[in-house]
């Protein structure tokens, strides 16, 4: 993995006010735990040797989603140029978990950080053709300017953190 997209990813995230936490599989839990505000919901992570702590509810009801302070999901990939993460919706509930909690923690593998939109759309097209029904290019928290000033956290999360797994 060339380091350049990662450096760009980090600076893009900084620009839009998002914290990037760099860690490895081994350090994952201790890196995640300070970012978990209870109650937390999540979806199972697809990275070998990486799992969510028990405190995170991975089979949430609607009420759990509504009450959640933190939602943890994997992101299919990151987009270095923009500091975006691509959330692939699936039966495990990545879409609602990333959307309803006050804070979304997106976990992305370093090898899945793509340099730009061109590379991203090549991957997205591949995903769609392989049957992924839903992908959201999410950049920063939800926001609105409709109430007379910029407010973070409109219908979706008001805060986003990206956890980067560097040994992937």
């Amino acid at each position: 993995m060339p380091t350049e997209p990662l450096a760009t990813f980090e600076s893009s995230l900084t620009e839009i006010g998002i914290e990037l936490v760099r860690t490895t599989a081994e350090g994952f839990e201790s890196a995640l735990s300070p970012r978990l505000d209870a109650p937390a919901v999540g979806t199972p992570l697809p990275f070998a040797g990486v799992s969510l702590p028990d405190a995170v509810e991975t089979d949430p009801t609607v009420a759990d989603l509504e009450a959640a302070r933190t939602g943890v999901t994997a992101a299919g990939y990151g987009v270095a140029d923009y500091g975006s993460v691509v959330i692939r919706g699936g039966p495990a509930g990545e879409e609602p978990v990333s959307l309803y909690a006050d804070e979304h923690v997106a976990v992305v593998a370093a090898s899945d950080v793509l340099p730009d939109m061109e590379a991203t759309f090549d991957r997205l097209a591949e995903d769609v053709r392989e049957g992924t029904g839903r992908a959201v290019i999410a950049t920063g928290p939800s926001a609105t300017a409709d109430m007379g000033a910029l407010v973070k956290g409109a219908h979706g999360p008001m805060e986003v953190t990206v956890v980067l797994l560097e040994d992937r």
Partner: protein
Amino acid sequence: MAVDDRRRKAERIRHLLETEGDSVRENTRVFNEGRYESTADLDDYEELKDEARAIKEDAIERLPELLDRVTEAVEANGGSVYLADDAADANRYITEVVDGRNVVKSKSMTSEEMDVNDALEESGADVRETDLAEFVLQVADEAPSHIVAPAIHKSREEIADLFNEVFDPEEPLETAEELTRFAREYLGEEILDAEVGMTGANFVAADTGTLALVTSEGNARKCVQATDTHVAVAGVEKVIPSVEDLRPFVELIGRSGTGQDLTSYVSLLTPPGDSPTFGGSGESGSPGDRDLEPGDDREFHLVLIDNGRMAMREDDDLRETLYCIRCSACANSCANFQHVGGHAFGGETYSGGIATGWEAGVHGQESAAEFNDLCTGCSRCVNQCPVKIDIPWINTVVRDRINRGTDGEFDFLVEGLTPDAEPGGLDPQKRLFGNFDTLARLGSAFAPVSNRIARSGPVRSLMERTLGVDRRRELPAFERETLVEWFEARGPRVSPDEARRTAALYPDAYTNYVRTERGKAAVRVLEALGVRVEVPAAGESGRAPLSQGMVSTARSNAEAVYEALAPSLAAGRDVVVIEPSDVAMFRGEYERLLPEDEHAALREDSYEVMEYVHGLLANGADADALAAGDGERIAYHSHCQQRTLGLEPHTVSVLEERGFDVATSDVECCGMAGSFGYKSEYYDLSVDVGESLVDQFTTDDTADRAVVASGTSCLEQLDALLSRRPAHPVRLLDAR
């Protein structure tokens, strides 16, 4: 237009200036500045725009085929596609699908065009707008005033008053955070209770049936995710060939609209999809108790609506409208829009520059006629449009059709744009301004008597009543001796042997009859730099009739100008133009008015006067032959069309090189815009727009600077609104 209609229109505009103007101005300015910043960061901005336009051109060209393709793809995925002829057809289908259930909607201009909410509510369904701005408007029972930020005309205070009155919360809501949180919670409940989610679609990829939704709030995601049935409505023009084709649009749309590099969410949905839904009710009957249920049997309906679009596709002038991605850059960059917003500059549904095309296409010419004149043709939107639509031309063509009184049944296809005369019923005000050349010739021939008569009280009053020329606006004073006559008597002062170059100075009607001083200054400046000058007797460029939608007259003017300049062009001379809107004509609109080779000749060999001076200096002419600035402090206002052509830097650079200390304005337009500021129905708006420029020229840094402007209209506006008399920049260089 009858005098009463003019008065009503003026009153309506004044009312909007007072009630909505401040909010609109503040918000559009933020969007506009954001766009300039964000697009400046893109290395390949122009390439992206070209790419986006090429995709749209291709998609509209192949639209019938793409519609078949997308239908196959969506059906193969398990969804349905309904191609609706018009709003009634689409509403009937959607009403059946909804079947009286609760609907939560995200923002969609197409659904506004169809008035789907009314249709659904009549059938007994509850419809809730979840986009925060649309929610505000639904509560206030008002129409959108902007295609991206529909409640842009309302201030935070007004929204707070509205919510406090309607919802009567325990603690009165005040801040934007409080209002947002309240709306989020209120709408969150409604989303949980709903069974149908309705969205628009910014784009639909034909090959896979993928919808792209560009949003920031997250409500569109929730509306789709929480409900069992998803209905997406979009115009047929939203279909593009493939998923990969989404990329340039994704990079352009947020930047062009609100100035965000990307909106928070770009959702690609290939429905039905398998993301869990909130399904039925929980065991206790309370929605919060529910488990997430598998989403793979979610119902999906894509409703693609024609509503006049396929006819627009056959119309050579309206077709480009279909390339529009509804980003709002044309509205945000428009000086008039910035001051009154979409309730004045908009029709039944759409607002801003491109609204004329949409309204003429989907609702008919009458809807466009209401507001079409608010486009002054300043062209500021042209470079801002991410798909390079020539919006002013669409406005001009529709104005021409309105003048002709034919309603949008496309009979202009027969008549075309080459009629032999303007129609008999043409508004006398338009006919007056459209024939400025004749007026100026007569005014000059009878000057100074003509000036005295024109300025007398009874005449002004008559002109206001019959022609709608506002008596508050000072009329131009015609010179008895025209620039052409002056030059004929004087002759050239640089001999052919010594000449560095030879140039024909184009005597636009204003320079020739009214502001002859700047023409004389231009001659002397060019001669000082070793140019042999001639001033051929060429008439008005056609800008005046074109701005009134008198395309046929504009074409005859263009032909006459070409004929007058042809000998100079044939002799290899340069054409130097003082008036920026005329340079813009020669380079731009003449493409539509003249044969291709004639347009090419003028486009290649014509220069704005300061651009030409800049070129001469860059090629070794002696700058010291020009007057020196010696640190004189000036405030310079460029001209809309000059900026669109990228010509502002030449003037600034020449003036700085000569030692002037230059401060520049960055407002989009002076507001005068040719005849616009004379018209009694628009006078107040013209002055209101002008005040933004005045503000920039009365700051601590600029209040004592001499005022300089390139455009005739800008000079008139500044002259009327400031006590300092403005001058054209070429006069600063004239050593006499």
